[in-house]
């Protein structure tokens, strides 16, 4: 276990800057994005004089700063830097910091920087970085045209990348937060930005409509969740997740564990909180707005929704479910409910995707199905200490829990590669016009074999065909579930006693349902492949695709990542495992 350093936030001599380097980078980037495009020859005339002091802010913008491509470059540089910082902090001397609100007895633990938060930072930044790079082509900045046009373009660019960075920032906070309310604030920062991103294409009616639906449903569920949080506060007196030895505060986890019998208040509160996260991960029945939002938003944004935003929801769930509701003995109360929701979610998603002709909606449903898979793994986590009274069960639960978390994190990370990749391919197609059915995909292999092969790789990976990353992640997920449900079976076997399927925990069948569902999902994933490879391109989409090198670069990175993480996933698994250890 690495040493934990307690640091008062922004205290002098503290490691705040070191611990929060990526976030600080993001903040600086945000500020720069505000300032730099606005640099101009504005002068401030000292009153009563004719002396004009150049303030450089406002006025006629400099040519260099009014370059419409500047915001993108800035955002990319920021994200790259942040990513780099997050990556290097993953080394052997990785530290764990607890950031507190003060030094004294009153101090709350606000943030915790550890392997868990780092891996998610990496994941978020990678996703957003890919999206940002892709958006250079997707949100083309025109250098030509009138000056005012340039200005407007520039503004739009700035808005978009600002929102992206803001999202990244909010998400970072979510990964680190050790206080439920801080977590919620991070969530809201990210979510509010994403609402705007979804509706960013306000010129199209779809964009606006998707935005409205996503916003209104999201707002309701986050309000409900916040209400739940307030009830928890009412119950416990603080929203700290961990108990704080320095202040003597009892955190939610410990308080929950202390409960003799289940109390109504925390349970109700807990349910309300779940609603908010369930919306984020688009679990059935909170998923309804998701397909609309995906198809209304531009594909890059939809890709973020399906990966980063979803991961954020899962971080919340992990925090709440694992830490808040981990039972000391027996199975968690939420296990059954979550299991049911998981099965319904994955089945709903897959079945709905079957006949979906809009590729974006199809991917949305597939993303719902994936949420179902992950929820199943989480549900198995609830089997935590099943049969805890038995002598047989010893070390397995923690092991298994770590394993499930490892798998979950791994899945969320590699999801960036193939889910976002798939959306990016659609984004590439969107450059030619709307993609609202499968026709634009027709004959893609003929127009652009590499893109088509990449897309097929993404599809197979989504379906979980080896040796791609999607297979690996599903493999690990199921591995976790099985390990959990097998408990200490191996010990019994090693002792010469047999074991039987009936002795497995019932969550074992969740594993089967995941597998059967992934077989079902092949229907629509393969269909995409078939359409790309063996249909004739439609009229108007015959010529080779536009060059769009940045977008292509992103797609290639995704494709390579999909293959690499399937074949050489060793290092990533270790990273995820460390992250899981940090949580459990």
């Amino acid at each position, binding site marked *: 276990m690495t040493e934990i350093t307690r640091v008062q936030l922004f205290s002098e001599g503290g490691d705040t800057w070191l611990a929060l380097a990526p976030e600080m980078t993001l903040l600086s980037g945000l500020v720069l994005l505000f300032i730099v495009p606005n640099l101009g020859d504005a002068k401030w005339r000292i009153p009563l004089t004719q002396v004009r002091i150049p303030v450089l802010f406002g006025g006629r913008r400099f040519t260099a700063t009014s370059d419409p491509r500047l915001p993108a470059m800035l955002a990319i540089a920021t994200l790259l830097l942040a990513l780099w910082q997050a990556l290097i902090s993953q080394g052997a001397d990785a530290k764990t910091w607890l950031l507190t609100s003060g030094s004294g007895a009153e101090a709350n633990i606000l943030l915790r920087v550890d392997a868990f938060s780092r891996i998610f930072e990496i994941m978020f930044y990678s996703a957003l970085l890919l999206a940002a790079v892709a958006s250079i082509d997707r949100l083309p900045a025109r250098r030509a045209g009138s000056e005012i046009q340039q200005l407007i373009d520039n503004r739009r660019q700035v808005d978009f990348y600002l929102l992206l960075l803001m999202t990244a920032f909010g998400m970072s906070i979510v990964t680190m937060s050790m206080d439920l309310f801080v977590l919620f604030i991070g969530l809201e920062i990210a979510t509010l930005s994403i609402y705007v991103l979804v509706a960013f294409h306000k010129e199209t009616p779809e964009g606006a409509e998707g935005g409205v639906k996503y916003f209104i449903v999201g707002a309701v569920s986050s309000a409900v969740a916040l209400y739940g949080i307030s009830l928890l506060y009412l119950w416990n007196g603080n929203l700290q997740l961990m108990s704080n030895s320095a202040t003597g505060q009892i955190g939610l986890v410990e308080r929950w564990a202390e409960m003799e019998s289940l109390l109504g208040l925390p349970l109700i509160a807990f349910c309300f909180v779940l609603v908010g996260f369930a919306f984020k991960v688009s679990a059935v029945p909170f998923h309804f707005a998701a397909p609309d939002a995906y198809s209304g938003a531009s594909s890059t944004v939809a890709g973020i929704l399906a990966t980063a935003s979803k991961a954020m929801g899962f971080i919340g769930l992990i925090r709440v479910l694992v830490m808040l509701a981990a039972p000391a003995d027996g199975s968690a109360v939420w296990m059954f409910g979550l299991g049911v929701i998981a099965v319904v979610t994955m089945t709903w998603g897959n079945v709905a995707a079957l006949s979906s002709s809009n590729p974006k909606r199809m991917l949305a449903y597939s993303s719902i199905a994936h949420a179902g898979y992950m929820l199943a793994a989480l549900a198995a986590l609830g089997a935590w200490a099943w049969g805890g009274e038995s002598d047989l069960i010893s070390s397995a639960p923690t092991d298994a829990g770590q394993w499930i978390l490892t798998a979950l994190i791994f899945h969320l990370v590699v999801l960036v590669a193939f889910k976002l990749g798939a959306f990016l391919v659609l984004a590439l197609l969107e450059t030619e016009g709307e993609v609202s059915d499968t026709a634009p995909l027709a004959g893609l292999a003929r127009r652009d074999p590499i893109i088509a092969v990449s897309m097929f790789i993404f599809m197979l990976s989504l379906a979980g065909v080896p040796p791609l990353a999607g297979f690996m992640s599903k493999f690990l997920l199921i591995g976790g579930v099985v390990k959990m449900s097998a408990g200490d079976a191996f010990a*019994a076997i090693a002792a010469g006693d047999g074991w039987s399927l009936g002795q497995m925990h019932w969550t074992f069948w969740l594993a089967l349902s995941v597998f059967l569902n992934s077989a079902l999902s092949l229907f629509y994933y393969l269909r995409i492949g078939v359409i790309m490879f063996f249909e004739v391109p439609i009229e108007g989409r015959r010529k080779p695709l536009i060059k769009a090198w940045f977008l292509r670069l992103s797609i290639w990175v995704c494709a390579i990542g999909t293959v690499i993480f399937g074949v050489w996933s060793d290092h990533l698994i*270790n990273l995820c495992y460390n992250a899981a250890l940090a949580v459990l």
Partner: protein
Amino acid sequence: MISNAKMQMRDREFALISGLLAISAVLMYLFPSFAVENSAGQIDWITLPLVAFPLIAGTVLMAFASMQPYRLKDRIGQPIKLISLAFALMMLGISSGLLFGWLESINWDLSQYNRYELDFEYAWIQSIGVSWHVGLDGLSFSMVWLTTVLIPIVMITTWEEKIGWYHHPLILMMGGALIGVFVALDFFMFFVFWEMTLIPMFFLILKWGGDDRRYAAQKFFIYTFTGSVVMLLGIITLYFLQPSSQALVDQGVLTGRTFDMTQMAIGAQAAANADIAWLGIDMQKALFLMFLLGFLVKLPAVPFHTWLPDAHVQAPTAGSMLLAGVMLKMGGYGLFRVCATLFPEALLEYQWLLLTIGMVSLVYGSFVCLGQTNLKRLVAFSSVSHMGIILLGIATMEPLGFAGAIFMMFAHGIISPLLFAVAGAFKHHYHTLEIGSMRGMAKHSPWLATFMMFGWMASLGLPLLAGFVAEITVLIAFWKAFGWWVILPGITLIVTAAYYLWSMQKTIFEGGDDGEMPESLGGAPAPDISLWEVSGMMLLAMLTVLFGVLPWIFFDMMTGYAYGLFDGILLNVITGGA
């Protein structure tokens, strides 16, 4: 028109790539002479080129070809085919070298439980205990050799049938993936290759298949995938039922377990020696069933067989040949490699199940054959029927039955490609597969008729051809195990003869002096099959005769394998359990 200079440049590029590939191939081939050997004095990594070369070469060729401008793609088709064939021949060279002792003198006939030749292990995904662990024994080596010999033959047979530049590379990749399945001793690796075989086949069907190819390709993919995910669940469960080992944890395996089949086999053997059911009989049965489902779908056995006729009817010749020739054998191979090796008690418990499914496949399959009018469907169902014999052979729980079943896999692996080559050529030249739509093929296409006759006869179990050896050995064991149930296979043999003879009567024979042409030909003359097709079929026919007359070349190795299996674990179980 593209300029001459540019074309030359393409040629040069091409020569470069092919040169590089050829040089690496030669290097790889010459390497044994100065290669490092393992403790057993064997060049244990020799399986690596068998798996990796075709996969890499296929990918490189396809990537290279896909980057060429569209109009050039016709021109590069031929060299790509040649390079693919060269690789296939190289693979054949390696595997034959292993067989005849040019590369390694290995006595394949001697076999012990859980001991593999050319055993090679290298950590792959260390954190979860996955390693590149390969090895060969009598069972897998015969399958590997079968694959390597089929790949070039398939290429030759379909040399001219379909135009396209990634047909042959796909076949090459298919070969690599198939060999991967057969050499894998690690469950993860096994499963990865198991699924990887689907992708080239999917494309083969989809790209060059019949009218309904989309449906067939997807059905093929999804159906077999569904079967194998259940198997995957079994693999994972099996994995976590292993004891965690501190030694592995120290090596960096997070779970402290491995997917290594040999490790599991050690456990299974130890349990069997101690007269207890490994993992407990209930668990073993559950796992057995999970694996069995995956294998039965692949095999395929009734009632999980319906993907096969569709896939076969729609698949192009090469696809059908490989599908029937090797892919189906994966199911049988798995039954031996996993079910018989690791779950002997469950195998004994479910003897009745194997018997039932095998019998139903065999008998029912043959009757369904009799009710078919489509040549390829007929042959496809005959595969179902023949695969039933494999199950029967296993159900006998006799070394002879096992050896016979493996030989059935081998023999069917040679005969069924011939059948599908014939059916494919039929479709290719007559544009129809309806039996009876044309008569008197002996007149128009004497070569095709000859091979059809030969293949059909081989398939119905004519002595001195490979299929007979398998049938007689399985039946001998079957009588010993089940006695009068042999009537049912007996009836099947008659029905098999009936449908084959009937289909020949309606195609090769009859038709008067001039024969009858199918309407689909539209009055055009029907040419006989090309020299390529003749060569391919001739090779298959020669192999069929060779292994019919001299079966011991491979049968001894299978006997050895079965002996090792029984000696190592099954005998204990049979005598102890009963």
